[in-house]
């Protein structure tokens, strides 16, 4: 599933960032921000009116990402979800 489909508070792990059909450097940028295979990730909140998601990558990096970009990040669910 994609990052955009995660519910707030749901823990998951980054699988991969799609690079096909996206501007050059998008994947590199996301990797530098922590979106690498196996990295824990969770959605903290989503803004109203289709606004961006606030996402925590690892334990100390938080960022805002639009849903359209979040749809390019594939994640796998940790079976032991919490919150």
């Amino acid at each position, binding site marked *: 599933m994609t990052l955009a489909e995660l519910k707030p508070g749901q823990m998951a792990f980054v699988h991969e960032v799609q690079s096909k059909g996206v501007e*050059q450097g998008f994947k590199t*940028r*996301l990797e*530098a921000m922590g979106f690498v295979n*196996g990295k824990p990730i969770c959605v903290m909140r989503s*803004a109203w009116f289709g606004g961006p998601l606030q996402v925590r990558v690892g*334990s*100390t990096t938080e*960022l805002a990402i639009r849903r359209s970009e979040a749809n390019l990040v594939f994640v796998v669910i940790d079976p032991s979800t919490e919150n």
Partner: protein
Amino acid sequence: MSTCHSGAVVKEAPNATKRIGVIGQPNTGKSTFFNRITNANAAVANWPGLTVDLMKAVVKLNQEAVEFVDLPGIYDLNGFTDDEKVVQRFLESFAVNMILVVLNASQIDRQIRMALQVKSLGLPGVVLLNMADEAKRYGVQIKTLELSERLGMPVYPISAKYGTGCQGAIAGITRTLAEQPNTYQVANLVEHLNENPVTEAEMEETLAGAVQMPSLTAKTFTNRIDGVMLHPIFGLPIFFASMFAVFWFIWTVGIPSADPVDAVTGWLQATILEPSLAFLPDIIQDFIINGIWTGFTSILSFLPLVALFFVIMSALEDSGYLSRAAYLMDAFMSKLGLDGRAFVLQMMGFGCNVPAIMGTRVIRSRAMRLLSMLIIPFSLCSARLQVFIFILAAVLPGIHGAIALFLLYIFSFVIAFALSAILSRHKNFKSNEPFVLEIPPYRFPTIKQVLLRVWHEMKHFLGRVTTFVVLGTIVIWFLNNFPPGTEGIDTLAGQLGQFFAPIMEPIGINPYLTVSLIIGFIAKEVQIGALAVIYGLSDDTLGVKISESLTILQGFSYCLFSLLYIPCLTTISTIWGESKSVKFTVFSMIFPLVVAWIVCFIFYQGALLLQA
């Protein structure tokens, strides 16, 4: 062939002065450390072959002169953005003895990549783990000696903001530098990193046992505050309330701040300047006092206001709140073809358009960047504010004037965003730029930090503005005093105003006001001063004259036109410098003129119809 060598290559002739390149991700406090080590002595320097200027400074380390170069903050040495290309080109064109890598200690789990890339390139380096105090609060544990061994580079935890560990780090840098007689230039940087990429496995290996990151579900103090600030229902209202509070503060503190300054400059003029020039011929005295001195006093009089804006914006940015603002406004901004950061830039434009225009550098998509640069000048900057306060005080005194001013602020936003919504459909301004923005923890800015930033901003502001303001006052002096012996409508100024009367009358703007608008094009700070000169009155009696000769509608139409019509020359030169396109710069001048005329026409004629 081109790929026979890649990575760092020892140069045969070492640098005369040792050079250290400082790299790091954005928002790691790299510049704070740079300022610390160079004692804020750095100057912007041009580097042949690079498209941007870089800060550099020469520092004495152990009796030796060492050059530090502040390279742009980048996410990845192997990246594709303009800034990343600058760093790549720098390392390939200029030899360094060593690289200083500044990392955010709390985010070492991902930022270690940069140190490993430097290692992969074979460049000698020193790693600074900045914001170590914050890392401790997060619960990040780092064994610096072990990390240092694995990287093959010395590692120093510091806090550039508070100074902790900096002396030790500088001593360490000095020691390491002493062991680096060679200088290195990188060949084929991108290729080398493509063939020898830093893998996740390598990062994990480097960190395992040396770094412990805190729990994934830790709820920090910042998270608690964000529970309110980014609340789905309360977040936006809180944001708007805080914006309103800022403007209210500007209104009550910033605007009256001009009075003491005016009192001082007025006293200086009367007691020192005028007597000392009394021996000169009248026309020269007049030129110096009303041509040049008036220009300076106009700038001085509203410096406190601009400084206040810069203080507030710097504090907001350093605290981390502006990232939240961008997050909250992004849903709305994306419908206008822009993103949340463009909203923050628009807000910055209310102090002065110029730093906001320069701030568009963070927008990588050229289409979106141009669109943002086009609408920023519709922000009600502090220079325009001066014009409105004066005119509204004359034609709409009291509470009505305050309401009219508030309406002008609202209108500034509305027109900027409406135009953006329309223009973003055009192919030149259409963009699909991804929106990914780091949200830092809340930080309490130190007074020193904010004042230092404001000092730099004000220095740049004065440098830019002085030229055009003085030019503006000279021009108006000239237009008003020639042909010699003429008054009012017969001077060059009056004739110029009359020339435009056919198009300005229908929007309620008389020839004298028209000339002030022409001067306002040069610099808006002297727009009202120009009006005083043309009417042949002092600023005090001008107010009375305005209230007698302008109707409320005419006054407001003049304000509306002043708000929209054209950016000042300083802004235009900045637009040109940033866009590097003559065509776009010309468009950014003509487009607002047309918009201003149409809007004022609708307002003035519409209001007249309603009155009748």
